[in-house]
C-alpha cells in the first residue's frame, strides 16, 4: 500500500470518527462563537485595525484548542495499531491535512459570524479569504506537530501553548499584515511578498514534521 493511499484512508478515518461523534467540531465551533460574542458585548465598536487583530487572536486560541486533542484523544493501543498498518509519514501527513480541513471550515464559519456581528467593510474579500486559507494552513501545520510533542509530556494542555506560541508568532505577524492589506483593499502586488513567505514557511514546517515524526512516534 503506497503512502498516498494510506494518507487517504487515514483522513477518511478521521472524518468518519468526527462525523460519528461531532463532538470536537461542535464544541470548538461553540467556543469560537461564544468568544466572538463575548468580544462583541465587551467592545461594542472597534476600529478596523483592532477588528483584524482580534479576529486572528480569537482564531489562534480556537485553533490551539481544536488541535490539542488530535494526538491525546487516541489511546496508546490504537496508536500502536496505526503504527502497524501505516507508515509514520502517512500518519502525520493525514493528521496535518485533516487539521487543515477542520480549521478551514472553522475559520470560514467564524469569519461569517464575526462579520455578521462586527460590521466592517472588507476592501478585497478574495484576498482576505486567501489570508484565511493560509492562516488555517499555518496553524494546522505548526500545531499538529507541536501537539504530537506535547502529548508525550505530562500536562500537555499548558505545554501546548508554551511550545506553540513562540513558533506561531512569526507566522501570525505576517498573517495579520497580509489580512490588513486585504482589509484596506491595497493593490494585490503589495501582498505577494507575504504570501510567498507564508507558503515558504509552511513548506519548511511540513517537511520538518514529516522528517521528525518517525522519531516522535516510537515509544
Amino acid at each position: 500500500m503506497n503512502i498516498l493511499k494510506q494518507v487517504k484512508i487515514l483522513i477518511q478515518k478521521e472524518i468518519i470518527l468526527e462525523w460519528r461523534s461531532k463532538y470536537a467540531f461542535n464544541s470548538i465551533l461553540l467556543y469560537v462563537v461564544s468568544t466572538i460574542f463575548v468580544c462583541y458585548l465587551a467592545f461594542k465598536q472597534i476600529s478596523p485595525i483592532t477588528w483584524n487583530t482580534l479576529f486572528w487572536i480569537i482564531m489562534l486560541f480556537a485553533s490551539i484548542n481544536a488541535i490539542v486533542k488530535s494526538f491525546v484523544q487516541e489511546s496508546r493501543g490504537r496508536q500502536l495499531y496505526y503504527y502497524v498498518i501505516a507508515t509514520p509519514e502517512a500518519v502525520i501527513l493525514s493528521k496535518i491535512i485533516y487539521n487543515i480541513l477542520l480549521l478551514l471550515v472553522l475559520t470560514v464559519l467564524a469569519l461569517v459570524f464575526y462579520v455578521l456581528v462586527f460590521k466592517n467593510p472588507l476592501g478585497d474579500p478574495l484576498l482576505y479569504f486567501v489570508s484565511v486559507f493560509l492562516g488555517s494552513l499555518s496553524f494546522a501545520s505548526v500545531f499538529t506537530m507541536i501537539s504530537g510533542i506535547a502529548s508525550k509530556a505530562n500536562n500537555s494542555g499548558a505545554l501546548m501553548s508554551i511550545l506553540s506560541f513562540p513558533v506561531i508568532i512569526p507566522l501570525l505577524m505576517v498573517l495579520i499584515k497580509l489580512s490588513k492589506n486585504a482589509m484596506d483593499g491595497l493593490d494585490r502586488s503589495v501582498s505577494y511578498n507575504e504570501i510567498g513567505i507564508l507558503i515558504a514557511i509552511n513548506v519548511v514546517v511540513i517537511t520538518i514534521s514529516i522528517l521528525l515524526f518517525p522519531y516522535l512516534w516510537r515509544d
Partner: protein
Amino acid sequence: MTKNWWKLLASGLVIYSIIGGLLFEVPHLPILHESIRNVYFHVPMWFTMIFLYLISVIYSIKYLRSGNESYDFWAVEAINTGIVFGFLGVLTGMIWANFTWGDPWPNDPKLNGAAISTLMYLAYGVLRNSLDEDQKRARISAIYNVFAFPVMIVLLFILPRLTDSLHPGNGGNPGFGGYDLDSHMRVVFYPACIGWILIGIWITTLRYRIRLIENNKLHTLTRN
C-alpha cells in the same frame, strides 16, 4: 597545553577587544558618537548566541540519528549557554538603545524577534522539565529543538528585513559593513566576534563536563 591553545586565544582576543574597543580610534557619526564602541560588545553576543543554537541543533540531529546520550548533553548545554548570551545581548542592546534611540525597548522587529526566540528556548527548558524519563526527554526535546530552529531563523533574519527597523541592514538600510564599519573598527570587531564565540564554546564544554560528572554520580548512586 596543545589542546587548550584556543582557550588562551579566546581570552586574548576578548581582552584585546576590550582594551582596543575602548581606546582605539572610531569614526565620529551623528547620533552614535562614542557609543558606537558598543558594536564590539553587543553584536558578538548575538553572533555567539546564534552559533551556540546552531551547535545545539546539530547535536540534536546527531542524537536523533544515534541515540547517544552525550549528544543530548551537548545540545542542552549549548542552549543554556546560548540563553545567557541572549540575555547579555538584550542587556547591552537596551543600554545602547536608551542612549541612541531614547528608549530602552523601542518597538523594533529585531528586538521583538530576539525576545520571542528567547521564549522559544525557555519553553525548551520547560519541556525538558516536564518529561521524567531520560531517553524520552532527550528525544522529545531534540525534536522540538530541530522543529523550532528554522522558525527562529525566519524570525531573526527574514522578517526584520521586510519591515522597517532601527537596526542597520534592515528595511532597506545598508548593513554595518556598508558604511560605518571602517577598517579601524574591523581590526577590533572581527577578533571580538571570534573571541566571544570561542568563550561561548568554552563555557559550553565546562557545563557539559559538569553535567557528565553529575550524571555519572547519579548512576553510581542508583547502582549501589
